[in-house]
């Protein structure tokens, strides 16, 4: 990968290896499905507590696999729009996915209620920033702000967008990203030089 980056005529090698990488990665999905069958199958056979849920999981996995791999429409592939697999995606997968993530709204709110107590000056800054971003980047917050006397003339949305999000937030996120990227490059070098071998199950 490094050589093909520097020697342009070898870029086909990079594309080939990338393609190999994606194929092997997809085989990992197959491995995941097989592991699910093994783990949950054992629980069903042993009839451990709540084995009915394991059965539901395996049935839903099997049904999705059957419709996604073997039930072909008149024209096209089983995963195309309008197929049974597409029905599963639209009416089961998407609602479950969206609802599970939207459920986090309540838990983040309750967690923040406990965590965001202004115990120190730094915690207060975090609290105030989160409050500003949550309240004044929505129409209701803007309406409340502009109906306030004296301060209502100040453009709070532009302040949050330009100064907080574009200034302080960009700086903090960039510092984190730069630190993480330097770490990623150094761990990659350690792997290539054989210093880091723990991914093979050995000691580092």
């Amino acid at each position, binding site marked *: 990968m490094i050589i093909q980056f520097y020697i342009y005529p070898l870029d086909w090698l990079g594309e080939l290896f990338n393609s190999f990488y994606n194929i092997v990665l997809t085989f990992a999905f197959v491995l995941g499905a097989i592991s699910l069958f093994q783990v949950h199958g054992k629980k069903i056979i042993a009839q451990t507590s709540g084995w009915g849920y394991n059965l539901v999981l395996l049935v839903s996995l099997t049904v999705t696999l059957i419709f996604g791999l073997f039930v072909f429409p008149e024209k096209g592939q089983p995963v195309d729009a309008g197929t049974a697999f597409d029905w599963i995606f639209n009416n089961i997968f998407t609602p479950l996915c969206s609802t599970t993530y939207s459920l986090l709204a309540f838990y983040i709110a309750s967690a923040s209620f406990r965590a965001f107590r202004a115990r120190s000056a730094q915690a207060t800054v975090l609290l105030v920033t989160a409050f500003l971003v949550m309240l004044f980047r929505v129409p209701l917050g803007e309406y409340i702000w502009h109906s306030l006397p004296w301060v209502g003339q100040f453009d709070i949305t532009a302040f949050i967008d330009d100064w907080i999000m574009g200034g302080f937030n960009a700086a903090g996120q960039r510092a984190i990203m*730069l630190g993480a990227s330097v770490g990623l490059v150094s761990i990659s070098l350690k792997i290539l030089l054989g210093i880091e071998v723990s991914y093979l199950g050995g000691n580092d």
Partner: protein
Amino acid sequence: MENAPAFSDMIGMWTGVCLSMCIFSFLYKDNPFYKLAEHIFVGVSAGYWMCIGYWQVIYPDLIQRLQGGDWRYLIAAVLGIMLLMRIFPKCAWMERWPLAFMVGIFAGYNIVYTMQAQILKQIEATVLPLWGTGSWQTACINLIVLAGVLTGLMYFYFSREHDNSLWGKSARLGVWILMISFGAAFGYTVMARMSLFIGRVMFFQDVWRATVQFFGGS
């Protein structure tokens, strides 16, 4: 007036509503309906990603290429099968080869592309003019970004003690910048989740309207 939805659409919509309500029931407490929906979610997700992986990667990039006579892809097929050998304890050692291949690709890719796309581009976006930018606001924001990134990185450098020197003071300033950043990121995440929740409530509203239409209402 819009056309009344078909019966099959109604079945689909109400399946989505029932499953969503099962998930939301967790707000009360853990219960069998939530567990049922949770297990359906895991099973359908695993199946979904496997099918998508097959039709978007394995079929076009492996099967079709092999059918077309590109035998180089046999290497990928062999590596993939070696990865699956993990399920047989006696042959589990074979999975080390594809794993080493993937880690090697990942490491090589990261060295060049992370360096180019993450590190150099981020530095380029940080080192901005502080004078003659046209407005004092832009100059101030550029200064905040530059100082924020530098002090933030100083905070993450743990090989030197954060004492009372200029280095330590700068690192402490970095903590303040990071706190503002965490607050903004938290607020943003909460709003994104709230937006998803509003989307779900609107979905319920749409299903209700469609149901009324289905039964001949307006």
